[in-house]
């Protein structure tokens, strides 16, 4: 497990979190490279199917980052997103996943540091949890 490098899919909303990630890069903050960012226009654009597809394709963790509550570019997108993610976490738990494998966090455009912190923490969490429990069955 020591050399386990998780693969993490990160959905960033265009208006806050993606800019936050950009800020983290510009500020040259050090962070693990286990994540791939997919930019969406809003955290509510992240269809639950995207998340399930990421897991089905072998992602060890999925993060959805959006604007802070009351800060959404589209006024209420992140409220929708957090309800969907809550449902998804319930479903993932029913499947047998640890719901910690799906994380929702708010990162604003100016929070490069928070982005770094979130990534570091999440990578640590996933490293602790180990690889995805999903196995391609044989029969």
């Amino acid at each position, binding site marked *: 497990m020591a050399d386990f490098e998780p693969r993490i899919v990160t959905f960033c909303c265009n208006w806050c979190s993606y800019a936050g990630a950009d800020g983290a890069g510009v500020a040259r903050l050090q962070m693990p490279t286990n994540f791939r960012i997919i930019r969406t226009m809003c955290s509510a654009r992240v269809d639950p199917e995207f998340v*399930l597809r990421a897991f*089905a394709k072998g992602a060890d963790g999925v993060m959805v980052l959006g604007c802070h509550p009351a800060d959404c570019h589209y006024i209420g997108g992140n409220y929708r997103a957090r309800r969907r993610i809550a*449902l998804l976490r319930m479903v993932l738990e029913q499947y047998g996943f640890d719901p910690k494998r799906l994380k*929702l966090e708010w990162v604003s455009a100016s929070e490069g540091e928070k982005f770094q912190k979130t990534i570091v923490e999440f990578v640590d969490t996933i490293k602790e949890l180990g690889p995805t429990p999903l*196995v391609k069955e044989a029969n």
Partner: protein
Amino acid sequence: MGFFDKLFKKKEEKKEAAPAEKPKAEPASTSASFKAEPAPAPAKTEAPKAAPKAEGGNPDPYAFIVPPVASPGDADVPKDAILPAADLGPLLPGAPAGGKIKLAVYWTAACGGCDVSLLDTHERILTIGDMADIVMWPVAADGKEKDIAAMEDGEITVSLINGAIRNSENEHMAKLLRQKSKIVVAYGTCAMFGGSPALANLVPGGAQEILDYVYTKTPSSANFQAEYHKDAPVIPQTSYQAPEGELTIPTLYDTVKTLDQVIDVDYSIPGCPPLPESISQLLKAVEDFVYNGVPLPPKGTEIGITTKTLCEECPRKKENARITEIKEPHEVDVKPDICLMDQGILCLGPATMGGCGARCTRAGQPCRGCYGPSPDVQEQGASMFTAVASLFPVLDEDPTCGEDEIIKIMSTIKDPLGYFYAYTLGKSLIRRAVKEGGQ
């Protein structure tokens, strides 16, 4: 859908033409006359005709099944919202020129409802025998596996297979029928999406755990085992050496599969079970192919669906009410014309393919999603998460509360996995229970 679009148009033309000219003494049996003469069973006496073509003026012994829910009470049901039955024309004109075709029906992991639903073709089922030899039909005919195995490859023209693939016997029969058939139709929701049998995928321990539970843990079997097999509980083995020879039973699979995960499928008909309208459309296509050489619809055609979701054909009015609590239909006085979701009843209409005429919601029951996801969507459940989550109102404390609060709010939905994937788990992306740290 192109082929069937034409069918629908033909039917509409007929509707307009038929009342004008009453061809024979038989009931002209359009939707208009339906109310006056409730379901006569006409035309059985009609001799087989030479010209099987479905023409506008022909008496249609099937027209009385056209309005699926048009009981005399609901005249307000928009007729165009419902997929019509195919115009099957007069009865079949005897055996086709090239001899009878072979037709097989088989059930795999299914309840048998799909098998029986073929009888919804009403008296037409009697004359299907003119067109085809039914070489296998578990619920009605006496075909055996060895009869099928003895056939040439491709000898059967059409095989209808209903049910999910649950064990080795299911898979064997599906593969055998595929080999012997020109056309294989995934018939019904279980064959297409896994249906209820696929919910067994949520048992983490798979087949072993299921067998163990059924044969040692359920109260009746636990008593039996304790009384007769105290030390070694008896669980069915896949093979047993009897003095007379080896006995085998099929192996139960850990993961229930859909038909198209095991064999190549040509057409599919959703529904639990498929509606008479869908069956008539399939029958029409086969009849046209057999008697008139009309090419079959393109491979992969889904029969009996519209292009939009169920909400499109549901007559209930959407008020965009916000809900804070999920209710069961029996817990509330269901208002007859308001959207069920507005009333807090979980309805899978927004995520489910249309084509059934929204029978359940018309009757005050929520859609459970047996028609499967809409096109371009694989996850019916995920579509529902999106729809349902948006119905929960934004609260005053929303900007300040944490995610745990939101989980608490959403927990009013009990068992989201079982509810939203009740019919489509076999086709979903994750498909089965997983075990954290179990690799």
